[in-house]
């Protein structure tokens, strides 16, 4: 039986996830251009009349794009990748249903207070800013839902191991389950922050909160969160992009090495977001900074493997020369081009990440517009544009309808690429010139509270980039809505299949260690205990629940 029919159940589950993801992106991304143009001095908030303030819109932008869109997309995508890669149904389908239902309930509970301007706390929700309790409870249920999706994949892979003793799991499923295992480990900090601090505090069960401890627990989850976004994009770059490009994955063992290193190194790095915090000593900040440079290593491995895989594809397509083979890649395929452009942008995003994590260099950029410029290259492009590229084959696969317009899809990818380069360049340089992030900057400039004449040309770049991105955003939804409602019905043999690539160097040519779990999980636990244990024990020992809640919005 063809895989698409065999996995009809999982296809429905995945469709629900992707549907919610694209709806979140639809509302969340709307605010991006409004914010960019606000900075440039053009206020268009009348286009979103249900939004009371800039910061309420910013909260929606961050929560819906960075948390809701990504998590729904990842849960749906990884579930479908896992069952297809293992050629096996999920072990306990009830977990798939419970997971997605919990996520939907969590989303609704968290979204209502935000839309009512009762949770204008941005997506970091730092206390003592105090949102309505349903915001925290909803966010917690949402994360628990994503855990349940992960449990489903853990049981499924475990069942596959039972059925295939002494075999290495296929690479796509291995990567998918590593991502979910990492997420499970990484979200413990957030879960403790919510359950022990934020929820009881917002319900009035405890009268005060310790902001430094809450921040520390948040960033325990906050940095691995970026790898939770990134690893599914890497998965696509490793095992699908080579196929879409007409080639093969260069090295399966090196891809596994990269992912097991992410499992070990993603979490014990959170203090590099807290280098300017008063309550953590410099030694620990330096230590986390060093580990963060360590986690750059598997990304550098990924860069090599992707480049080499594309090189193989370029040659197989008849490309010659040291670099001109790049032109032989099938740039006319939007599902590929979007992902290649995302990967190109990530070169700059990755370099920026190393700068941010470099201890005292962070003093120049911390909480400036540089940081927003940075993560629009990473999660806003490397991840989001890759996911949109995946949608360009996945949506026809799920719906059985042809993509509404491949030309529009190509135009979308290129406008995102150029719009983001212009926008992000402006934001990075604004940050170096002192512009704070998450600030209604147009209003600052008008009131002369924060202003710098050197910003002027950069503000134009921010506004221009935001406008180009707005066009790109519209093009995404022309295709999504067009495909669902007006896409040509595909014959069964026309429906795109999952583009899994073969590898040149197979898993069996690498050491078995790279396909095992226990050593890497033990390594992750060890590094977390070493890098967080003493600090968290001291913070809990000296906890001061003194800060009451504030709602200054």
């Amino acid at each position, binding site marked *: 039986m063809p895989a698409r029919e065999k996995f009809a159940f999982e296809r429905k589950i995945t469709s629900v996830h992707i549907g919610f993801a694209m709806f979140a992106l639809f509302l969340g991304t709307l605010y991006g251009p409004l914010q960019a143009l606000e900075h440039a001095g053009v206020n268009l908030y009348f286009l979103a009349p249900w939004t009371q303030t800039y*910061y309420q819109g910013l909260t929606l932008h961050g929560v819906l794009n960075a948390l809701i869109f990504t998590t729904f997309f990842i849960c749906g995508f990884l579930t479908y990748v896992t069952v297809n890669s293992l050629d096996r149904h999920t072990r306990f389908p009830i977990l798939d249903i419970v997971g997605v239902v919990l996520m939907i309930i969590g989303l609704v509970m968290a979204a209502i207070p935000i839309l009512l301007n009762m949770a204008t706390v941005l997506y970091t929700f*730092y206390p*003592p*800013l105090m949102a309505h309790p349903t915001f925290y409870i909803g966010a917690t249920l949402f994360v628990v839902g994503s855990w349940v999706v992960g449990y489903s994949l853990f049981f499924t892979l475990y069942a596959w191991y039972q059925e295939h003793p002494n075999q290495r799991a296929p690479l796509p499923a291995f990567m998918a389950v590593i991502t979910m295992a990492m997420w499970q480990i990484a979200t413990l900090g957030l879960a403790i922050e919510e359950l022990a601090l934020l929820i009881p505090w917002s319900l009035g069960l405890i009268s005060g909160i*310790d*902001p*430094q401890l809450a*921040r520390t627990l948040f960033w325990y989850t906050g940095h691995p969160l970026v790898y939770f976004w990134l690893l599914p994009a890497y998965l696509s770059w490793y095992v699908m992009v080579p196929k879409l490009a007409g080639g093969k994955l*260069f090295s399966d063992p*090196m891809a596994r090495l990269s992912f097991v290193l992410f499992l070990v190194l993603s979490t014990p790095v959170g203090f590099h977001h*807290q*280098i*300017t*915090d*008063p*309550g953590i*000593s*410099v030694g620990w900040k*330096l230590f986390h*900074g060093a580990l963060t*440079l*360590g986690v750059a*290593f598997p990304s*550098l*491995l990924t860069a*090599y*493997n992707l480049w*080499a895989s594309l090189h193989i594809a370029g040659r197989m397509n008849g490309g010659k020369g040291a670099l001109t083979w790049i032109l032989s890649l099938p740039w006319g395929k939007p599902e590929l081009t979007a992902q290649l452009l995302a990967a190109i942008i990530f070169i700059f995003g990755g370099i920026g990440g*190393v700068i941010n994590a*470099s*201890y*005292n*260099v962070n*003093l120049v950029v*911390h*909480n*400036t517009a540089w940081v927003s410029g940075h993560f629009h290259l990473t999660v806003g492009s490397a991840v989001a544009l890759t996911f949109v590229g995946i949608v360009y084959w996945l949506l026809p696969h799920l719906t059985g309808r042809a993509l509404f317009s491949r030309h529009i899809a190509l135009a979308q990818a290129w406008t995102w690429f150029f719009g983001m380069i212009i926008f992000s360049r402006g934001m990075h340089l604004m940050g170096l010139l*002192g512009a*704070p*992030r*998450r*600030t*209604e*900057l147009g*209003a*600052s400039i008008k*009131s002369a*509270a*924060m202003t710098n004449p050197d910003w002027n040309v950069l503000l134009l770049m921010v506004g221009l980039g935001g406008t180009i991105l707005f066009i790109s955003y519209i093009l995404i939804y022309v295709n999504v809505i067009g495909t669902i409602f007006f896409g040509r019905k595909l014959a069964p043999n026309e429906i795109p299949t999952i583009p899994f690539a073969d590898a*040149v*160097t197979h898993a069996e*040519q*690498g*050491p078995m260690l790279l396909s095992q779990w226990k050593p890497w999980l033990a390594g992750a636990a060890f590094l977390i205990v070493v890098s967080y244990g003493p600090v968290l024990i001291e913070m809990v020992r000296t906890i*001061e629940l*003194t*800060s009451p809640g*504030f709602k*200054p*919005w």
Partner: protein
Amino acid sequence: MTTPTTHDHWIDPYEKAWMVISVVVLIGIMIAVTVAGFAFGIQAPSPYQRVDPNTVTQSGPFSKPGLTDLGGGQYEVYMIGTASGWIWEPKEIRVPVGSRVTFYLTSKDVQHGFMLWNTNLNMMVLPGQVSKGSVTFEKPGEYPYVCHEYCGIGHQTMSGKVIVE
């Protein structure tokens, strides 16, 4: 780039070189920032003191925020960030050229962030914690300081300046 055949544990020689270069570059960066931190003194804040945000403005140095001349070109500033009115207290500081100023900052309500333009001073300002950092002002001019952590709908107006004469 050659194609592997049947070798066990096969790694492409170019890839091996790439891995070595990657590790060397990352270690080089780590050494550079460590040297900058400990040899040149470019350091992030470290724990200094904890306070009760509910009473911090009632007694002690934060009850009279402002500049104190310690003599010999040394100054200290006790400064409070607040989301009631979105201001830094004090809003303006005047010191002579060449002064070394030590900042002590705290918040009496939500989280704020303190960035002093054209210097390396950048600190989170948390209720319950005192952030400490020092700057030597070598050149005359205005050094604005802005709040860089979202602290409510007036966050974008929260700024002040050091005037160096």
